[in-house]
């Protein structure tokens, strides 16, 4: 009897691994895992074989050897006696700099072009169409080369600023020099610097000045404190508004909090504007924005801006007209309609592709090679590999850097996406 109520457990047969859907997925995964591991083993094994055959080894010791080459644009201190690792770091910072600058201007350009492309003005509309299509359909590399060449050909040489009959003069009260080697702008320095750097007179008979990280950290700290204070003021205004219905006027307090403390710090440190001036072959002092940086920056911004323009246009068009009309029917002002109804919806469409454009821009900055901008590909992935013959180690490091950067940016994108996702069933 008991046999009827208690059916025998079906014995596990080997064929179930293939035909039974309960087990099949495990089989497939195990097979896949084995194949992947085998492939990895094969690759690593080949690499080791090849390294042995070429008489090379795998180590990162070369990163601490002296680099021996110079880098023109360096955001941190560097000279040719420092290590390859330091050179790579200089390159990384340069990549980050141009990527950041590019993202900012590409967004601004893209938004302007996207909005103008929807303009009813025929000339403006067509001009923007030419811009967008022209940049989208020609390789970025070509644009970078062309813009670099246009800049060197059309801007004056530094020597034209020299002498009695100089054909060129500096702009903005002798503060800015635009040349075909880049743009020199004034820099800020301090007579009472707390950085400990030795104060140097920028020009003969001038007050010696210096600047260093400590100065800027102090200023940033004060600025941050001011912003926090401003937040408190705003919160207080909010509370009063909720309690009484009247919002106290606070803008002058906010403005004062923003300007006065930083201003005081500036005075204490003895802020001085150091303008560039002609010395020898080039301008001296000031900040030198090199042509390679500017060309790469402009080309990346214009190219990515054209893509962003299309994204912005699509985003605005994606918000249905009914939304605007409904907002008007509720009696909202046009400006508030834009802020409260259209933009939040358009942003949801715009932001994800926008961030993937930022990602593209960052990766495209590796084309710096075309204009001799010393980014990480040019230092670590270029000269260092070439001089040391460590292509395997160098390329792995380079790939890891770009991958980390991309993952950070796409992580930000995913975070935003989950936050703004429409809550559906």
């Amino acid at each position: 009897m008991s046999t009827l109520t208690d059916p025998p457990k079906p014995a596990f047969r080997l064929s179930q691994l293939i035909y039974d859907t309960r087990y099949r997925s495990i089989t497939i995964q195990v097979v896949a895992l084995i194949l992947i591991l085998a492939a990895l083993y094969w690759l690593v094994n080949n690499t080791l074989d090849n390294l042995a055959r070429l008489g090379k080894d795998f180590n990162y010791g070369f990163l601490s050897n002296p680099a021996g080459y110079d880098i023109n644009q360096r955001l941190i201190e560097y000279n040719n006696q420092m290590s390859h690792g330091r050179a790579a770091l200089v390159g990384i910072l340069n990549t980050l700099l141009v990527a950041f600058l590019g993202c900012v201007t590409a967004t601004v350009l893209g938004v302007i072009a996207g909005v103008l492309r929807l303009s009813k003005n025929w000339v403006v509309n067509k001009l923007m169409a030419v811009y967008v299509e022209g940049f989208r359909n020609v390789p970025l590399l070509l644009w970078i080369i062309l813009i670099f060449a246009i800049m060197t050909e059309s801007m004056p040489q530094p020597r034209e600023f020299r002498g009695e009959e100089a054909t060129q003069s500096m702009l903005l009260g002798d503060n800015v020099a635009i040349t075909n080697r880049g743009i020199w702008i004034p820099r800020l320095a301090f007579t009472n610097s707390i950085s400990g750097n030795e104060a140097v007179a920028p020009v003969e008979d001038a007050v010696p000045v210096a600047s260093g990280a400590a100065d800027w950290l102090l200023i940033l700290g004060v600025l941050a404190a001011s912003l926090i204070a401003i937040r408190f003021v705003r919160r207080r205004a909010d509370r009063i508004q909720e309690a009484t219905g009247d919002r106290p006027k606070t803008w002058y307090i906010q403005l004062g909090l923003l300007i006065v403390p930083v201003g005081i710090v500036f005075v204490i440190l003895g802020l001085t504007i150091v303008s560039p001036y002609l010395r020898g072959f080039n301008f001296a002092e000031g900040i030198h924005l090199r042509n390679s940086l500017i060309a790469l920056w402009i080309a990346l911004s214009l190219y990515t801006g054209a893509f962003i323009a299309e994204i912005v246009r699509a985003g605005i068009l994606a918000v249905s007209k009914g939304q605007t009309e409904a907002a008007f029917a509720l009696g909202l002002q046009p400006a508030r309609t834009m802020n409260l109804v259209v933009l939040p919806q358009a942003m949801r469409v715009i932001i994800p592709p926008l961030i993937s454009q930022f990602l593209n821009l960052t990766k495209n900055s590796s084309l710096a090679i075309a204009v001799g901008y010393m980014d990480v590909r040019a230092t670590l992935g270029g000269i260092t590999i070439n001089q040391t013959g460590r292509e395997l180690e160098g390329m792995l490091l380079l790939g890891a850097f770009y991958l980390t950067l991309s993952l950070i940016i796409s992580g930000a994108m995913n975070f935003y996406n989950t936050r703004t996702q429409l809550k559906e069933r």
Partner: protein
Amino acid sequence: MKRTVLFGALTIAGLAASAASAATLDDVKARGTLNCGVTTGLVGFAAPDANGVWTGFDVGVCRAVAAAIFGDPTAVEFVPTTGQTRFTALASGEIDLLARNTTWTFSRDTDLKFEFVGVNYYDGQGFMVPKALGVSSAKDLDGATVCIQTGTTTELNLADFFRTNNISYEPVPIETNAEAQQQYLAGACDVYTTDASGLASTRATFEAPDEHVLLPEIISKEPLGPLVRHGDSDWGDIARWTLNALISAEELGVTSANVEELSAAATDNPEVNRLLGTEGELGAMIGLEADWAKNAIMAGGNYGELFEKNIGENTPIGLARGLNAMWTEGGLIYSPPFR
């Protein structure tokens, strides 16, 4: 062989999977062509013409080696390489011989595992400036902007030079010679520095060459020569002695015009006879035909002819022989004896 056919079958890409075994000569013979690495284009040294035929001084070396092996100077595949890809192309066996104005240095010979087979051009790094700048010595270049080509020894030499003289400069790294030339002419740099031969040939193509001068300082030694991989000395010998044959031919007065006649029968000069294979068995010693050197010389002429035809004083490039004259004429070009 089957594998070769297979990859051909899968890809029909023609060329694939040839094992870079120890005997490069066997591979080259089996393939029927010599794979020779050259620049992607440098005036006078290597560039394809309107019909896609490569010509130039470095190209001449490749053709001579091909002629020595196959008797056919056209049995060469020219593989354009950049400053950055040239060494990996050679190390991986993609090319058999690299003739791309490459400087012979200690670390390249030892650490990068290559073997330089000789020097076909003695060069040195120089500076070119516009005359209007009024500079007469490289030591006056404090603060100057300098255009350099990346991926070469130039950037290291430059750093050394400015450091030892304790003056500052602003490097502008440029990828190709053509690009650097455009930057220099537009005044984006005060100075253009590269091998003196390159400077001279670049200057020769300017619209107004007289407005530019080469500074007297030569800041480095740049012996440029063809190189092969470490580990196959037989192959290295073929490349080395082909180059030497071209040099000896000039010394002995053997030219592309008279080599046919001289090799028809033994002459009075035993060294010419040994070189051209009418006496002795030098060819067999390096695994080639007896007339290998004759073929190499017929490919483009002897060393002097190659020089005159591609970069000499009668070409737009107009380089003087200088250091590259025969040792008998006060230069450094010298070949060990054929014996």
